[in-house]
């Protein structure tokens, strides 16, 4: 059994230091790794990223993260990622990593992802250059996730997890206004997950959404946005087949 802890949308700012650390310090009792599903800061400034880095530095379990849209707002996501990496966090964008959990190999593939909407109600790659680039960017994120999952599939992992900020499915958006679904996720992420295969999909972004969902191909999806799970993190026990 692999114990996956996950949370997203912790939106840390200057006054946040130490708020989550007491809960994170218990991770060795209940989890083998911690996934951070993006929007770790409010504006993506180095100052905020340092708060996050300090909060997760030297945790008793490996930490794997993707960034979210808030972490891009200050337009220096590479700096945010570098500060987190300096604190020992593996930050993924269109790539994967293998975590050793008590002799078991767990693969995590990550991308921030992007919007565009869901089947039958999605944006198309058509018209103005900005609109086409919107959809192409979402597609590039999904392609990166698919290739990372496929690569992990060749690395003898007992389980593979897809980690995103934007949602791959509409299920976990239930509670959000329907009108903003296209800004909350894209079916392209789910198609990538179903094409490459995964045991669990974890995302954030939808604060008013709901926790449980599933891709069309049957992969379980969990929205771990902190306002949704109402805890410092949730834990999922993945049982190997």
């Amino acid at each position, binding site marked *: 059994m692999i114990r996956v802890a996950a949370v997203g949308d912790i939106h840390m700012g200057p006054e946040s230091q130490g708020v*989550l650390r007491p809960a994170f310090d218990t991770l060795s009792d*209940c989890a083998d790794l911690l996934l951070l599903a993006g929007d770790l800061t409010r*504006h993506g400034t180095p100052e905020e990223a340092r708060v996050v880095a300090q909060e997760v530095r030297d945790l008793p379990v490996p930490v794997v993260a993707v960034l979210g849209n808030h972490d891009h707002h200050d337009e220096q996501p590479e700096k945010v990622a570098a500060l987190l990496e300096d604190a020992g966090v593996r930050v993924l964008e269109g790539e994967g990593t293998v975590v050793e959990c008590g002799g078991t190999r767990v693969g995590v593939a990550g991308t921030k992802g992007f919007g565009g909407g869901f089947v039958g109600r999605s944006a198309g790659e058509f018209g103005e250059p900005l609109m086409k680039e919107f959809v192409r960017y979402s597609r590039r994120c999904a392609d990166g996730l698919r290739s990372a999952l496929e690569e992990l599939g060749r690395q003898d992992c007992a389980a593979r997890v897809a980690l995103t900020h934007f949602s791959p499915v509409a299920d976990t958006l239930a509670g959000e206004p329907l009108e903003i679904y296209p800004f909350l996720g894209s079916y392209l992420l789910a198609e990538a997950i179903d094409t490459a295969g995964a045991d669990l999909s974890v995302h954030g972004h939808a*604060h*008013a959404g709901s926790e449980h969902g599933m891709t069309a191909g049957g992969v379980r999806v969990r929205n771990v946005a902190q*306002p949704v799970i109402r*805890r*410092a993190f949730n834990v*999922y*026990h993945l049982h190997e087949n």
Partner: protein
Amino acid sequence: MSGSAPEGAGENVEYRVAHFRDRLAAEELGELGVRAEVRPGAVVVSGTVPSAECRETVLRTVREELAGLAVHTDVLVAETATPDHAEELP
């Protein structure tokens, strides 16, 4: 002939609510997760924010941007407890 304007755009409740949400996003909070909806007779402001300080900032912005309107606020601070159980995924 131009259409009649029973109230200025600046006084229209819908636009004031839109500007309130713009301020939450643009200022120190960077807050996109607070919902503000116009209901009959009142504006409802709801959501979960990361800290008590953020909640105070939201409420102050409500007072400044939506002054004179009936506003119901339901703004919570994110919970940080350790989970008491795990979900089994066979």
